[in-house]
């Protein structure tokens, strides 16, 4: 009984330290990246918003063929916002430890904290950008209100989970091999057109659908779109595939981060 109470107290204390460290890292990361000049940390979501706006404008202007009768603005917004989520998180985590090795001198800061802070920051930026643009487009009348907000949130969190796990895995792996950084850039470009952002699975021929559904991001985007458009989206996804995949990827990420943490040599 006393053991239990003691463990709980230890846990509560560790948790407080954990939150304090993460908070400090977040502030530090924001200051380092955005500084205090001009709009400062507002760039956190101004940048992804500019990206999404640009892509939305381009796709609208070229009347991109996306194989459905869904409105192009909504299509671009849901699609490109999702890309930001899974692409920027690994982009920020790869090589993150090398530039933060000096932090390893502080016992309370763990390797995983450095990655977690960056993942959280990217998640925050992409989410605020998605939310704000949705609101603006809704008010302008360019968008119809979503059918099921909870489902959108679910799909969004699933994408974030996948992106975060991928980011930590690749980030930790990149500490061991420079190849990760070299290969991630082309890979992320090549996956982009296949990620479901620029097409609906339903519009593809049957055999292509089966192949495309092996790509994890596709499931998340389809869920977000079903949340937004409801029946009209005719979404294809399989929670029985994507959830176990995220679980396994998370486990791999944690193991890799632990492996790196055991062998890390501070600057």
């Amino acid at each position, binding site marked *: 009984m006393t053991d239990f109470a003691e463990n709980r107290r230890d846990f509560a204390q560790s948790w407080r*330290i954990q939150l*304090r*460290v993460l*908070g*400090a890292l977040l*502030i*530090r990361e924001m*200051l*380092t990246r955005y*500084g205090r000049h001009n709009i400062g940390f507002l760039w956190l979501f101004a940048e992804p918003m500019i990206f999404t706006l640009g892509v939305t404008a381009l796709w609208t202007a070229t009347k991109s063929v996306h194989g459905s009768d869904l409105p192009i603005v909504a299509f671009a917004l849901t699609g490109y916002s999702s890309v930001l989520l899974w692409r920027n998180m690994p982009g920020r985590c790869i090589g993150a430890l090398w530039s933060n*090795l*000096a*932090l*390893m*001198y*502080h*016992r*309370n*800061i763990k390797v995983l904290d450095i990655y977690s802070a960056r993942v959280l920051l990217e998640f925050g930026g992409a989410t605020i950008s998605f939310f704000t643009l949705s609101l603006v487009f809704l008010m302008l009348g360019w968008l119809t209100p979503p059918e099921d907000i909870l489902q959108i949130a679910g799909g969004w969190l699933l994408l974030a989970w996948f992106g975060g796990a991928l980011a930590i895995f690749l980030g930790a792996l990149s500490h061991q091999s420079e190849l990760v950084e070299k290969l991630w850039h082309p890979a992320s470009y090549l996956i982009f057109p296949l990620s479901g952002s620029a097409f609906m699975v339903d519009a593809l021929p049957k055999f292509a659908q089966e192949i495309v559904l092996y790509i994890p991001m596709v499931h998340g985007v389809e869920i977000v779109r079903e949340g937004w458009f409801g029946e009209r989206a005719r979404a294809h996804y399989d929670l029985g595939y994507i959830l176990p995949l995220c679980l396994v990827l998370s486990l791999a990420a944690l193991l890799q981060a632990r492996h790196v943490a*055991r*062998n*890390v*040599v*501070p*600057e």
Partner: protein
Amino acid sequence: MIRLRDIRKIYRTRHGDNLVLDGINVEIAKGQHLGVLGRNGAGKSTMVRLMSGAERPTSGKIERMMSVSWPLAFGGAFQPMLTGKDNIRFISRIYNQDIERNLAFVEEFAELGPYLREPVRTYSSGMRARLAFAISMIIEFDCFLIDEIGAVGDARFHDRCNYELFGKRADRAMVIISHDAAYIRDHCNRFAVLHDAKLRLYEDFEDAYADFKELIGWKPPPGWPNVEVATA
């Protein structure tokens, strides 16, 4: 008390494994100041990093029964893009300290003036060392790990550092690494020589220094110790 038991540390390098520390056993209690001598690359800094918990040993056990500092006077714990002030705020958050009190102390102690509001990358190495030392004094540890502090700042600042560390905090435990043997002699009460991955402990400085000189193959120049300084 910090206790190191059978510590081994191996670095994997391109040309095979490098055994840096092999079977290190040492205890440091409160009030003890352990001075460590050793040539470049002997593993002194590695040992201190292991003690601080920044790095893990390949095998062996390290027990810390008191709060231990990070390797002190080390400038690299900064983010060069951030200002001195933001760096102080960051460290204060990590160690759960009063930010305003710390800002005031560093401002007074480091004497960096308006530079405290400039990015650390614009600092000279002496200024960085001042900031680093001042920051490491704002957190009270039971044991200070001091890695080559002899190089900090000018003579005046040096004296103030010595007063902060050995005057005000003489009751704490310390582990001091330096190539300045006199510095170790003056500030330590236990001594050690790290050579060939082994640590030898001594109670007396002269014994340690004699062994150290022999191990690194130092030969006194003719006429030592009454050598005339060459003048131009």
